[in-house]
């Protein structure tokens, strides 16, 4: 029983950065912008988040540093891809390259330092309930925030008028523009939201997951977040399923190796990717019969031409 609880806790911790980063990217892509710079924004968020927490001793300020850093990175993207109408794929990739270099520079002075990781919730009585106590009432603030975030995004996209307008920009920027909506401004906000989330997701790594900073510590999580958005067919509900499924299979394959199941470890390491892709593809086939990508995703929009 204790082992089950330990596994669930590890799964939640492993899934949270993916969920936060993917939520941000989902909003960005729903507005019609493809920002492939998630990995770069994450790693800068990680470096700045650690720097903030180390300098002030506060995890909250560290998280805010991460959010601001991710947002600033996304503004570079917005300036290039929206302001100057440069190709979004190339700009996003360049942002990742920039982020990896920049984070190494920012983080250089902090390599080898330690901080106290984010505190876990403790409610006497509730947290002590066997099996579910620590899972429900003993997480760090990032985990609760990530769930609130995805619910908020779902509400915004499907129940609020601004969300409808944002989706309209993503499906047909010409129509949205014709109706008088400021397409580029809306997209800039969406890109900034994506950057803020990526920055926070990156900051989660040194603030809660492994409380130290090392260059390259995101190790490809930004790319996984991007893939999750595609395979969730741009729907918040499926995104949650995808992120947790990926985290769960990642942790379970490690445990399976420890138990000595005898399946080659190379296959086990590939399993999270395989399982997530298969399940999400099946989900989207069963419901809608095909991809539901925002129609204007990745296309350049220049008003009045």
């Amino acid at each position, binding site marked *: 029983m*204790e*082992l089950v609880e*330990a*596994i669930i806790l*590890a799964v939640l911790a*492993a899934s949270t*950065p993916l969920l936060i980063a993917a939520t941000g990217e989902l909003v960005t892509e729903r507005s019609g912008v493809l920002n492939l710079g998630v990995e770069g924004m994450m790693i800068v968020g990680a470096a700045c988040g650690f720097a903030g927490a180390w300098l002030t001793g506060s995890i909250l300020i560290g998280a805010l540093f991460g959010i601001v850093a991710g947002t600033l990175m996304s503004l570079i993207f917005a300036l290039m891809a929206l302001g100057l109408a440069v190709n979004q*794929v*190339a700009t996003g*990739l360049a942002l990742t*390259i920039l982020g*990896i*270099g920049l984070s*190494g520079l920012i*983080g*250089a002075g902090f*390599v*080898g330092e*330690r901080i106290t990781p984010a505190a876990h919730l403790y409610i006497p009585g509730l947290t002590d309930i066997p099996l579910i106590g620590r899972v429900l009432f003993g997480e760090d603030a990032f985990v609760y925030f990530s769930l609130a975030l995805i619910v908020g995004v779902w509400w915004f996209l499907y129940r609020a008028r601004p969300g409808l307008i944002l989706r309209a920009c993503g499906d047909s920027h010409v129509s949205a523009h014709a109706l008088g909506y400021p397409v580029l401004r809306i997209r800039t906000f969406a890109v900034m939201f994506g950057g803020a989330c990526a920055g926070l997701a990156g900051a989660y*790594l040194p603030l809660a*997951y*492994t*409380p*130290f900073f*090392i*260059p*390259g*510590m995101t*190790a*490809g*999580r930004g790319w996984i977040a991007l893939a999750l958005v595609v395979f969730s067919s741009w729907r918040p509900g499926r995104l949650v399923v995808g992120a947790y499924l990926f985290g769960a299979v*990642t*942790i379970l394959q*490690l*445990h399976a*190796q*420890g*138990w*000595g199941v*005898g399946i*080659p*470890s*190379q296959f*086990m*390491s590939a399993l999270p990717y395989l399982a997530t892709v298969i399940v999400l593809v099946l989900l989207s086939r069963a419901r809608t019969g095909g991809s539901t990508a925002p129609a204007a995703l990745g296309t350049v929009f220049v008003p009045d031409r």
Partner: protein
Amino acid sequence: MRKTLLALAAGLLLAGSVSAASAADKLKVGFIYLGPIGDLGWTYQHDLARQALVKELGDKIETTYLENVPEGPDAERAIEQLVRAGNKLIFTTSFGYMDPTLKVAKKYPNVHFEHSTGYKRDKNMSTYSAKWYQGRYIQGLIAAKMSKSGVLGYIGSFPIPEVVSGINATILAAQTINPNIKVKIIWANTWFDPGKEADAAKALIDQGADVIMQHTDSPAAMQVASERGKLAFGQDSEMIKFGPKTQLTSILDTWGPYYIARVKAELDGTWKSEDTWGGLDSHMFAMAPYTNMPDDVKKMAEDAQAAITAGKLHPFKCPVIGQDGKPVECKGGDHLDDGQILGMNFYVKGIDDKLPGK
């Protein structure tokens, strides 16, 4: 598309990280690094050695390094860049640079190359590596003494001979203390992913392991063991900062003396192609101080280290029993020979797991 851009990215990174001080008629020595010099592990240790080299011979040489150079064909351009910049002795510090180094070496017969952990050589290309399994044997002794649960946790990177021989040396040593010792092995299938390494350490501890050892590069596992109140060994570098009450010892890569010796040979004109596989006796690596253990365990570790250094104790002394219960052919007299260790692709008896790919 993505590949081209990544290549472009690598190029940009390279261009950005060339660092050199210019001076006339000094010997130029170049280094190719796999990771960033701040990785606290493999590359960090190579750069410490470069710094030691500069300290020792700084008035006669100047050094240049390229960091974050990806393994594979891309490395060729980086190595050539160092050649064109006038470097006469070039150290390529990762296994994956083997073929690129050889290719460049054939093209520039007047430049000397030193490749780390590989097995291909040429007239102007040497190889060098360390017998880390000796250190793993000492760690196995300590682990068996310190484990209360009798279960060790081992995080592997890739099932290559270097890692497998480390696991075998560990378990052979541990069995001399506790014949029933168990080891749980998790392959991370990466050298560097702090999050995944931490998850692997958590899984091992949750399954009952109380001493964690790793063959991956970040201090994440050490830090998890510290958080959970368990014990652990560092890797490549001193990691005691991440577990002041956790680290038992760590295998430290100390390339400095080798680099100094090779550069001196180059300066004297006595450099020639060689294959160096050094152990504790030749200071190719060192053990971090033995900490967080009682005095008798510390003494045992120090005695074992002295015996290995003096050549009196060989981790793979015969008979070595394979998983099938049969002794492994003993090619080195009373111990396995170097070739058998360098190509080790089997588990010894006592490991209840299957070697991936077997």
